[in-house]
């Protein structure tokens, strides 16, 4: 299930500083609860990838790539 449109993913990618906006968006979509939103904000991007993999929003190989390549890879995957 796509968590966002490709247009939304592109919009995030173009942002200068996107962590908070992405987390807010995922919270609004019900992917993250308030507790997880806060945990990821405090600990960093890799915790977001870990969580998405754990909840099966992304596959193991995608998580591996997302850790290497960052948001530019992850966000289009979430839009598929």
């Amino acid at each position, binding site marked *: 299930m796509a968590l966002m449109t490709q247009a939304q993913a592109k919009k995030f990618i173009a942002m*200068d*500083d*996107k*962590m*908070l906006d*992405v987390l807010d968006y995922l919270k609004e979509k019900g992917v993250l609860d308030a507790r997880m939103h*806060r*945990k990821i*904000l*405090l*600990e*960093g*991007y*890799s915790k*977001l990838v870990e969580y998405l993999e754990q909840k099966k929003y992304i596959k193991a190989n995608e998580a591996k790539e997302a*850790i*290497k*390549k*960052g*948001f*530019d890879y*992850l966000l289009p995957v979430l839009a598929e």
Partner: protein
Amino acid sequence: MYGWAGQRLRVDLTTGQITKEPLSYEYRRKWIGGRGFNSDIIYNEVPVTLDPYDPRARVCFGVGPVSGTAAPSTGRVTVTCKSPLTGGFGDSNMGGHWGAELKYAGYDQVVVQGRAKHPVYIWIDDDKVEIRDARHLWGKFPREADQMIKEELGDEDIHIVMIGPAGENMVRFACTFNDVWRAAGRTGTGGVIGSKNLKAIAVRGSGTVKIANPQKMMEVCNRLRQAFKTDPMKMGLYEFGSLCLINVANRDGWFPWRNFQGGAHPLANNMSGETHSQTVLKHREGCFACPICCGRFTHIKEGKWAGEEFGGPEYEHSVPTGPRVGIIEDANDIWHNARLTNDYGMDGIETGGVISTAMEWYEKGFITTKETGGLELEWGNEEVVDKLIPMIAKREGFGDILADGAERAATRLGLPEEARYYTITTRGMTLPGDDPRGLGFGYGLSFAMGTRGGCDHLRSLCCLELSGALYTGLNTKILGDERGAKPVTTANKPYMVYYEENQKATTDCLQVCCFTTHWSYAVLTPDQVEYLNAVTGLDFTEEEFQEIGERIVNLERAYWNRMMSGAREDTVPERFLKEPMPQGVDYQTNVGVVLPLNEMLQKYYKYRDWDPKTGFPSERKLKQLGLDYVARDLAPLRNKYLSEAEKKKRKYYY
């Protein structure tokens, strides 16, 4: 109890009362130690309206649960007070061995209050604590007094916290030393200690730190020490000390030439770590349990300062009384000036800052030899700098005016508003020797937001920006991509500053050195949590660890807010916002750059959940952090901050 000693030592120098206060589990879990313990005491026990030199003010010395263990660099100690320089929250931390020794003596924190009738020092010999006469030590340089106390107590192995003559004379940027050369340089802690007639605190501890899981601890420490063997930042710091940054700073245009009029100079290599190690380095020194050993010991061999020796210099200790005042041709002049600020016990950054400001006032015609008492404050005039440093420490003549810091000096001299353009301060404290137009925009943001004033590289420590490029993938792991590793960009900087401020605050609670945890990334947050749990036997999580840092940042911020310092004061000196960086060398990378602070500020407030109009933490945020009492303190002040009367007030210090 594992890790912590479990008690605070409180010494009242007015009454002579010495008490030992237990630290509860809840308290230790909430603040961890060091900076956390100290910030809590200042917030709760030092009213924002109190003069920092009032006897009722406190000065705190804090260590952490891993202090004195085999984890990397666990000898640090944070010194905290209400700053006499800024009037706001102030702290500074230092390396050496005193922190570990205090732990072995059985204390997590020392709080000193009151004022002795005559100069004294405190002698902590495990359980036995005495207040002893120090009249014979008053006026002595730290290197002299340190030896005298050791002889007096008949023990060469004690470790001593100390102030120099500048602290005794309540210079507003006097610093605190331990092991003679290790300085807690910033915010004027030495002046507060001097105001209490306290010269030193000598410690001897014969105890140990109880480790809950020794085998796990050894595994973690061995793994981390292996990691240091190939760490790229460790290599540079060991070989050349923090002076390894000189040539980098010059290339990237953050070398503070003439009070930041420029960011690079063709002769910068004269004072580089490479040159220093080939010419005047006598030996290297390390702090307690340090795998890096960035400390230098210098012996000047030639010229008019031949024969002088001292511990140091550091990058931040030498550039302010070197290039920032226009001295670059003869590096021995720079080493000599660093030696002077050490011996007199003054923050090298603030000393260079106030002298360079006075030089720019002189250049621009705001002051003349009439105000300076005949001193010709021309750029690069070493003869004048050599005279002025002792004059500041002794509060003599024009030195007495400069001893109050650049902002108060402008007031005392009756200078017009436009003269303050050159003071290069935020919240009353000068910036370190790093131009954010080159060092990085993240640093620029952190200079504006520092909870101890215009600083600094030891506060927010945007090392994901400074050294992040050396650690492939690290920026991505934390921030989501590598763009933040470039200094001159706003990309990811608000989140970077938010993340690193939290991380640094908790690192300061553990009281381990930032060079082993941020500059070099051989130790990451999960490693810190791992050894914290091995030592204490508790179950801290990474989330909890970072949240404690966030709690501390918010508490310190609220102290400023209570003084009516908020969003209007969240800025950096205008020079960095208005003047495009000029070209100093042909290979400089940041020509024409200005700092786009406002683009980053609004996003930073969102990460913090602070009101962008006031810059005050939201009530929601404070309650989330267990700071309900702080929320109550701030509630009546939010509207006051926005009132027309407050808006009209220009605050340069508090």
